[in-house]
């Protein structure tokens, strides 16, 4: 609310981001572990030949992976933006507050106890775990009303993450699936297929719609809870819907791509810096930036040490931790 940004500069920002996004997407299609000439990549789009292995590679591996990266980026950025808005905490992020590790616990349970392991079961369990993590951290926020500074909440989130990951490790070590869990944790998008896109797309859209639906109330909430209630926002409704969108977005991102930290932390900060705190603007810009960051990180994860993949979560952590440490030293941490 404090910063008003002129429409023209917003258009410039959006145009620049879209340009960058297009560039990165093209690069992701052109470069990979297997060298494929540009002409072949283009040919796979306008004259697809099912018998050509390289065409198959572009259409069945690189393209779905690119789309998954974009969608997961949107999901992470939006869940971070909603989380920071709802908890009024500049350090909130699904991976810092225990939600991601809650989803990880869900996946550990499904690895250990579901004999017919499929993408759908792991998705369901991961949603359950994400909901558990979100519920616990929001309960802590509500229960400690006023007594918890943003810093304390983040530290509590770290303890919660430690608890969840200890439980997951215990369960998977006992059932001897520990390395499966680690591969999934660090999995990134190397296994992304069209099936994942089909799951991601509707869930991310739903999360985006819910977030946009409460965007006005979220903006008003920044003026304080009393003002928001006075202006006709139902706090319970906003919190409940916000909770749903966080669970949907964080849960689906984790189940597809494993633990990817710090995207949900950094992106809302950059977006707020660029377009201010009007959520109608903030949410789409966050989504766009999240998409860009994740596609860039995924490209990096493939390029650092080819043909091996560097875990995507490690790449984002290497980018995110310095920023986190910078925030940790900053004085003002409420949104």
């Amino acid at each position, binding site marked *: 609310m404090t910063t008003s940004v002129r429409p023209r500069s917003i258009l410039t920002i959006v145009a620049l981001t879209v340009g960058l996004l297009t560039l990165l997407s093209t690069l992701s299609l052109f470069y990979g572990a297997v060298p494929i000439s540009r002409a072949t990549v283009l040919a796979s789009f306008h004259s697809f030949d099912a018998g050509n292995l390289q065409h198959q590679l572009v259409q069945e591996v690189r393209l779905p992976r690119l789309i998954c990266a974009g969608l997961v980026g949107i999901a992470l950025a939006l869940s971070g933006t909603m989380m920071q808005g709802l908890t009024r905490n500049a350090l909130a992020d699904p991976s810092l507050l225990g939600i991601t590790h809650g989803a990880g616990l869900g996946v550990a349970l499904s690895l250990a106890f579901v004999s017919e392991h499929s993408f759908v079961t792991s998705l369901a369990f991961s949603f359950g775990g994400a909901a558990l993590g979100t519920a616990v951290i929001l309960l802590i926020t509500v229960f400690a009303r006023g007594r918890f500074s943003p810093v304390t909440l983040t530290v509590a989130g770290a303890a919660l993450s*430690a*608890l969840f990951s200890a*439980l997951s490790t*215990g369960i998977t070590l006992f059932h001897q699936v520990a390395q499966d869990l680690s591969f999934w944790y660090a999995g990134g998008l190397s296994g992304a297929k069209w099936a994942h896109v089909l799951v991601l797309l509707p869930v991310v859209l739903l999360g985006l719609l819910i977030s946009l639906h409460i965007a006005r109330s979220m903006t008003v909430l920044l003026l304080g809870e009393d003002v928001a209630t006075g202006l006709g926002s139902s706090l319970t409704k906003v919190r409940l819907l916000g909770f749903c969108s966080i669970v949907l977005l964080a849960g689906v991102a984790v189940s597809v791509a494993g633990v990817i930290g710090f995207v949900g932390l950094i992106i809302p900060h950059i977006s707020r810096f660029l377009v201010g705190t009007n959520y109608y603007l903030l949410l789409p810009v966050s989504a766009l930036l999240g998409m860009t960051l994740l596609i860039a990180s995924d490209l990096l994860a493939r390029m650092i040490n080819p043909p091996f993949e560097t875990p995507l*979560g490690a790449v984002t*952590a290497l980018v995110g931790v310095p920023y986190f440490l910078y925030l940790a030293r900053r004085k003002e941490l409420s949104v």
Partner: protein
Amino acid sequence: MDVWHAVKQARLTLFCLCSLLILTFVYSLSTGILPVSFSAIGRTLIGQGTESERLILIDLRLPRMLLALLIGAGLAVSGTLLQGMSRNALADPGILGINAGAGLFVVLTLFFFRSATHQLPVLPFVAFVGATLVAWTIYRLAGKAVQPERLLLVGVGINALCGALLIIFQLKMDPRDFQQATVWLTGSIWQADWSSVLTLAPWIVCLVPLAFLHSRPLNLLQLSGSLPQTLGLRVEQTRKRILLIAAALAGSCVAAGGGISFIGLLAPHIARRLVGPNHYSLIPVAALLGSLLVLLADLIGKNLLAPADIPVGIVIAILGAPYFIVLLFRK
């Protein structure tokens, strides 16, 4: 004078803890997949046991118990020192990322010098370097932080960074090494043998008394404002020295038993409840409590889902993390 006064005040607590520790120790020796009777334990310890009793007790269980004692004491004292020097009741080598730094360095060593993995005595030194590096980073980043939680926040960041680097190297290991590294990182002592006990013992035996000798400066550091300086303490220098001892303790424990979080948090807290804030009595009581906690966690870990073993670190994290959150509320 301070020393005798403090010890006299805490003698009942010390006596109770010692007896509890001995009882748990003996009980833990007798339980396991193959139960051994108390008389058989006595027989074996004086060298009269059968071959299989000797194998179970002397070669398998005893080193594991001793390692639990040493690691518990080391991490508890490390936590006490960190809490004392930062005046932050929530400091713990695990939470601050010191364990993660040490673990990262050990995994790097295992990764790059696989043939040399049996050079066990080197690992504590490597871990010490990692721990000191993290401790120094934290000190630089949050040394004079206004809010105690900022220190923890920096720790959260460092943990994430080390975790990211760890996972990069772990995934490049072959599956058997990987399983071993994971088990070890989560804090396990079940593969303990005499060589790891003998590697860790000198560190603990030297460093814990050294920590105890710093009780007076630690007590002075608790005073507010410029009082410590006025009383003749070189504050920053002392804090650095204490931090170094804490890092050495945590590092050597990590090298021997992997990262066990929350012991350095739990033990000093319970100790403060029992004997108050005087470090002369706090450090020994915390050390005993740390040993007792790790021993109990190990007992739970090996009996709860027998014949499977749950790593001690996981048992303690499951107990310690909720306690930590409650402490955050209480403050």
